[in-house]
């Protein structure tokens, strides 16, 4: 009777294999770009969404007035030109007369005004509002001219306007209350279909004022496991992919036919200390921690060296060579001395929080830091938290130390005013401020001369590194992996995928 069993068994297996093989995808050379990422957008309202993953999608659909290019220079988007008044208190934009929304309507100054008013209205609940508080009123002298009247000089405002959170949306959609449910922008792609956490289908916007895209559309699949993304690339199932985990990204170049692009990004990895908690209240202790951390070693271990040690300022225009900063060369003796001077010769215990998988290297970073700080007697207890729990804890400032990946901006003021000004919204997270920091920030805000600004912020950076409320570690890369036949993608340090509008897929 054994025979008939095994017979059935073999039949069953053969059948399923046959069925399986038939269903396997054949790599197709369509003009539609097949793309994969592991984290999906969480919503469609460009004013409200702040997650990187949402911004990546919305940047393809909506447009701001101006945008940043790959060198972080401000270039036209919806606006063809702009200028600050002499006193830096008015900012005037000229809109592209060809710009149209995907519903066919022209993009007018009224849409811009309505968009910014929506952004500024408290009932909208837009977090980005904090960056535009200096806007006092908006005038629309004609269809293509918008004038922003500012309550005080605000040089970083223009940089803030490059963010997709300042996207221009149709006034009619605002009135209809459909922002966030329908995505009608003026950008290079139209969103045809969105299944959250599964896939997006985008098609090229033929009427885009920015020119013609060379692909017909983009099919985005959400593959939550990045090894699966790699497998899909290998099987030529995906043309283009975003990769977060350096451990996975470094495997891409080994594969013939695949290319990996990496761009340094503005976001920075940091060990946040909480200076409101003893013993981090002591300057000596914070400095000791800064001296005890070997930033390059953390980078080499947790990220396999994929990144660059950085000070507080990550944008090339302002960043200074880290070697000029306080204790960027590891100095254990100094660290021990500082600890002893602060009265903690025997060290202390503290808890460090980190988010699971956000960034993917968080747990590894925490472990290396734990091992390094153990050498000066600091016993760290690692607490990994689900991202939301982490955010909640972080916002309450309820931690001794936190391993974090914080967002960077092209302008130092917009990047840090929330933390290192006396009125900063996130002072309760930063828990440290002194007059020097606040003064320098206020100066930097109103100064429009680039050279003077650079000096102000160099002083700011040095001081910040010296008082060490946080231990800045390094910046990492954003990775895009692609088949060799995908051409023309230009990445930017903001991680934007806007470059996809220039991409073509060779047959």
């Amino acid at each position, binding site marked *: 009777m054994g025979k008939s069993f095994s017979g059935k068994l073999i039949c069953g297996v053969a059948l399923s294999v046959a069925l399986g093989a038939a269903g396997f995808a054949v790599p197709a050379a369509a003009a539609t770009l097949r793309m994969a990422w592991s984290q999906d957008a969480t919503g469609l309202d460009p004013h409200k969404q702040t997650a990187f993953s949402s911004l990546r999608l919305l940047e393809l659909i909506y447009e701001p007035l101006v945008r940043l290019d790959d060198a972080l220079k401000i270039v036209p988007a919806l606006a063809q030109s702009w200028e600050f008044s002499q006193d830096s208190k008015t900012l005037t934009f000229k809109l592209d007369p060809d710009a149209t929304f995907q519903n066919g309507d022209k993009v007018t100054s009224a849409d811009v005004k309505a968009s910014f008013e929506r952004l500024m209205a408290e009932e909208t609940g837009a977090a980005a509002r904090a960056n535009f508080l200096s806007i006092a009123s908006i005038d629309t002298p004609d269809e293509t001219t918008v004038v922003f009247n500012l309550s005080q000089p605000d040089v970083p405002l223009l940089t803030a306007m490059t963010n997709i959170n300042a996207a221009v949306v149709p006034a009619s959609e605002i009135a209809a209350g459909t922002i966030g449910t329908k995505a009608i922008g003026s950008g290079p792609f139209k969103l045809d279909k969105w299944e*959250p956490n599964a896939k997006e289908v985008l098609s090229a916007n033929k009427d885009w004022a920015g020119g013609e895209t060379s692909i017909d559309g983009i099919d985005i699949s959400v593959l939550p496991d990045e090894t699966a993304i790699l497998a899909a690339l290998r099987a*030529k199932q995906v043309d283009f992919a975003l990769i977060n985990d350096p451990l996975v990204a470094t495997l891409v170049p080994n594969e013939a036919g695949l290319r990996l692009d990496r761009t340094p990004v503005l976001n920075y990895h940091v060990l946040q200390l909480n200076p409101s908690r003893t013993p981090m209240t002591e300057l000596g202790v914070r400095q000791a921690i800064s001296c005890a951390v070997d930033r390059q070693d953390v980078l080499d271990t947790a990220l396999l060296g994929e990144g660059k040690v950085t000070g507080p300022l990550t944008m090339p225009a302002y960043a200074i060579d880290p070697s000029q900063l306080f204790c960027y060369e590891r100095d254990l003796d100094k660290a021990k001395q500082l600890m002893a001077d602060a009265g903690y010769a025997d060290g202390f215990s503290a808890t460090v929080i980190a988010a699971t998988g956000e960034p993917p290297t968080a747990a590894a970073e925490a472990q290396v830091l734990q091992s390094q700080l153990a050498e000066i007697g600091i016993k760290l207890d690692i607490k990994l938290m689900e991202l939301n729990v982490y955010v909640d804890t972080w916002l309450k400032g309820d931690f001794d130390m936190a391993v974090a990946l914080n967002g960077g901006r092209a302008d130092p003021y917009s990047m840090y005013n929330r933390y290192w000004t006396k009125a900063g919204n996130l002072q309760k997270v930063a828990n440290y401020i002194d007059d020097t920091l606040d003064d320098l920030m206020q100066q930097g805000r109103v100064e429009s001369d680039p050279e003077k600004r650079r000096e102000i912020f160099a002083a700011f950076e040095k001081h910040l590194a010296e008082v060490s409320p946080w231990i800045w570690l390094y910046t990492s890369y954003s990775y895009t992996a692609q088949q060799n036949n995908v051409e023309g993608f230009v990445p930017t340090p903001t991680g934007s995928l806007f470059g996809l509008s220039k991409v073509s897929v060779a047959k």
Partner: protein
Amino acid sequence: MNYLTRRLVTFPLVMLGVSVLVFISIRLVPGDAITAMLGTEAGLLTPEQRAALEAYFGIDQSWPVQYGRWLLGALKGDLGISVTFGKPVLDVILERFPLTLELALLSMAIALLIGLPAGVFAATRNEKPSDLGVRIFAMIGQSTPNFVVGLLLIYILSVGFGVLPVMGAFTPLFQDPLENLGQLILPALTLGFAFAASVTRIARSAMLDVLSEDYVRTARSKGAPAMSVLWRHALPNALIPVVTLSGVEFGYLLGGAVIVEQIFALPGLGRMVLDAILQRDYALVQGSVLFIALNFMIVNLLVDLAYAMLDPRIRLGDR
């Protein structure tokens, strides 16, 4: 039937318990829809902005009020609106359910097709080498975490053969059966592997028990040939524990195979609930957990019906 009706009466009670449990536990988890959407940027919100968002997400009222409102809606068939999908929860669930159902059915089919013959075969070879072989294979199946199986399958197929089923998408069965099967076969094999192992073990031990029963001896005394003894007399009696196990496993699978869906990027129920929890989409979590619980209980009911079909003592007696 009496027994079944009584089971049906307890349905609403259990559902009520599940709904209270999920309602409270999801709200006890730190973080809410606002932090889920904004991340650390939520710290930039003014109190007014926060209040506006709370009202928008429907979390501005006290828990009892929220629960009452939700329950009233649920009784009318309205499970609320998912904030991540911007659609009624029920629509979202029903979109994801076909995949989960099909995956569960497919894995069960694989499991039964392999497990049942293997178990019966092993039982007839009790303690002989071939029996030991089947048992060890079964145990390996049971003892390998399914994410290991899944990752290995993907790795071997993509590196070794350069082929891979399309991931991240789901084509409904009736639209393109071949593509549909291609998408589901690997996850189904991954799930079916462990499931088949359990079926093999249960079927083997149940068959061993039944083969020592008096009525099997009676059948032999009537001159029934070995095959008839095995399939006609013994198997129907040995099926009850197999049905129990299959029911339980199937019930669990209908709740979505979170890890396997994650690895194979399948838009199934399990991943949807996981994402809903991570994004604090309260209405979606509540609705889908309730839906999963309902499925589980319906499957249990079906298992009871299957018992009745298999065993006249249950069919005809009033338990």
